[in-house]
């Protein structure tokens, strides 16, 4: 088994917390089936247990609570498992800096683990201007080992020649997304249109789309020199640039506007989008994303 980028203890702990939350971000559909003897959101009664702080009040079994003198809640059996595609952007822009790609891999690992732990089937898709590879759907420990190997082996694509302008193309994942499957898209979404058109397209084909935008806070910083050429790491396009006091602020504002537009668009498409910085902890990012109403 490939060496996991994250400690398994942490993954297990995260999976325990994330399991109920994952129900909120997935939609059951074709191919889903019940996960037996697992407490969750479902219609089939599983058992009762004593109330613990944080439990939903609506789950309290008032009749039994009156009878026993203690607050008792009713638990239901998790009613379904789903197919999840984790689409990982491995374009050159994700390789920018030293933190974006490791963060992407960490997030993908944790999501995969949590989904597999919750009984879902998971597949990985690596894409940039095209789909580079796709693992088949699967579940279980062995499948996680396979996913992990893929995650460790893949590196972001960088074209050293930059002969062609090849922007990231999320739309290329369309060919590998099955209808009514759930998607996790991990990308920086740093395309002029924010990949909104492709997201919309995927939304039309998928049961649910979750997007996590990985950004590096130093992306909008350039060396303090009077004059330099900026070069797009993906396309190789170079542009003379004169450093001003406001150049970085302007770029930060442009990024902010870009994210705002993307956020607005995702909201309209019912896509749950979380923007994160590479300085944040992966658990914090994912829990924020999975929180109901996030």
């Amino acid at each position: 088994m490939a060496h996991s980028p994250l400690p398994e203890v942490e993954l297990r702990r995260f999976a325990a917390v994330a399991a109920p939350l994952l129900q909120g971000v997935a939609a059951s559909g074709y191919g889903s089936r019940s996960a037996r003897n697992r407490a969750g959101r479902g219609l089939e009664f599983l058992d009762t247990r004593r109330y613990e702080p944080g439990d939903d009040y609506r789950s309290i079994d008032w009749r039994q609570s009156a009878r026993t003198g203690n607050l008792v809640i009713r638990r239901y059996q998790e009613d379904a498992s789903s197919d999840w595609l984790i689409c990982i952007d491995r374009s050159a822009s994700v390789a920018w800096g030293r933190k974006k790609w490791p963060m992407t891999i960490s997030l993908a690992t944790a999501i995969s683990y949590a989904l597999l732990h919750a009984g879902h089937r998971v597949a990985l898709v690596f894409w940039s201007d095209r789909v580079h590879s796709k693992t088949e759907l699967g579940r279980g420990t062995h499948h996680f080992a396979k996913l992990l190997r893929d995650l460790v082996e893949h590196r972001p694509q960088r074209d050293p020649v930059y002969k062609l302008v090849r922007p990231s193309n999320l739309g290329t994942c369309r060919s590998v997304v099955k209808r009514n499957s759930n998607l996790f898209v991990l990308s920086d979404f740093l395309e002029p249109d924010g990949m909104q058109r492709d997201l919309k397209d995927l939304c039309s084909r998928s049961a649910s789309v979750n997007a996590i935008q990985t950004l590096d806070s130093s992306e909008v910083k350039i060396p303090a020199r009077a004059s330099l050429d900026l070069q797009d790491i993906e396309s190789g396009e170079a542009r003379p640039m004169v450093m001003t006091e406001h150049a970085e602020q302007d770029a930060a504002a442009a990024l902010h506007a870009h994210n705002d537009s993307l956020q607005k668009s995702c909201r309209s498409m019912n896509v749950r989008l979380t923007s994160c910085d590479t300085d944040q902890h992966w658990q914090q990012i994912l829990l924020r994303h999975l929180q109901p109403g996030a």
Partner: protein
Amino acid sequence: MLSLMHPWWLAGLGLIPLIRWLHRRQAPLSTHQVSALFLWGSGAKEDEAGHSQRPPDPAWRRRAFFATLLFVALASPAIDTGVDSVIVWIDPSPSMQVIENGETRLAAAERALDSELADLGKVRIASRLLTSPLPQKLDRQHGNWLVSDGANDHIREWAQTSGFDRVIQPGVFTDNSAVTQLAIRRDLNDPGVFQVLVSASHAGDSRTERVLSILDSAEVLDSFELRMEPGQTLHRQISVNMNTKTLTASLGPADPLRDDDLLAIPFQDLRPLQVHIGEACPGRLRTALSLHPALSITSTSASGDLQVTCGTESASAPTAASDPAFVAHLHFVQGESNPVAAEPVWFPQAGLNGALQVPTGHLRAVRWPEFLDKAIQEPVLLAKSEPLILILRSPGSRKFIVETVIDFQNTGFAKQASYAGLVAALVDLAFGRNTLDSVVRQSRNVEGIAIRPQTVLVRNQANAADQNNAGTHLYGPLLLISIFVIALDLLLLLLMRRRARHE
């Protein structure tokens, strides 16, 4: 009102577009990869040909501001305090009399001056003639204007350093020729003939041809065709007899400055001086005086130029009051013979030539109690001991009385060459000038004939010495601000470099 001392420095502001252009053309220091180029949309643009146009480094504004401040400071802006009175200084140089377009330069300048003064409105005006010595400093309480063509080097240089507020400067012509010297002296071989020397000079840019005429009153004695190069002086010499009345040298044809084309000398200044010799004087003295080429012996005692008397006492010498007709008087005290053994010593103020050697054996000692008893003011010739040998007195404005105790009757002395020389020297003493070989001369300064107009800078152009008094100067604060701006620029550069190094 704001004025600029050196406005030509403002031409340096033309460098500002160059500064901007230089900041635009600088090569990129490095290439930096970014994850999304579209975020940096405010960078360089592309022109129609597709070439990238680098926007100028914003630091160009700071540097252009620095350059602007520097050039404005160098232009020396000042706030004039304003004047309500003007002193017009007028250059009286001969060149101001040059006739151009039918009027003299002075007249043309006055016309221009009137026009400009009328524009000033109500101001008090005073005019001063620039006479030597020129003022050390101009009064800055008033405006100072100069009317000058700048041809006079002395006045021009003084005006440059004085710093005039306004210069009215006429003048077009540059060439002028002049008679610069007319000199007459007696011919040493023939007392009845005089040698005349005439000098003519040319100042200007081109060669000129003039005719030099030497006239006696209206009669032309001689004429010369002169071809003169710029800056050249030519000399011509002729001989004239003593019947000449008024000797004139003139240049023709007339040039722009006619006043200096003529020099004249009244010839009576060279006629023989009339001498009346008293009866008591020894014959040898009479002979010596009659042989003097500049003297003419007259028998009439009523008038003349020199009266020679001889006597035994000093008191017998006539005074100016008793004999007003004579210009000079020589009195020979012929007392008892008492040769002075001591060598004579000239008192410093004595007018006689110290080289004239008088044999001491022929000097007599005479006591003049009136001079010995009080401080002697007049020049005297003393023996090494007390006796006075000669005393020169000037009792009136035109009278010279020379008293001497030299023994002019001595036969041995009369045979010596120094006898006539001493008599001639005493005559010179009596007249106060060289009569034996006198030169009568009229001349004008060669440098003074230049009429070429030359620019006189006004105060805001000249390197005036006393600019501090001209008003409130702003170049100091402007220079300080410009230094602050460049220091700030350097500091920012330093900070950027340090930041780049850290990155």
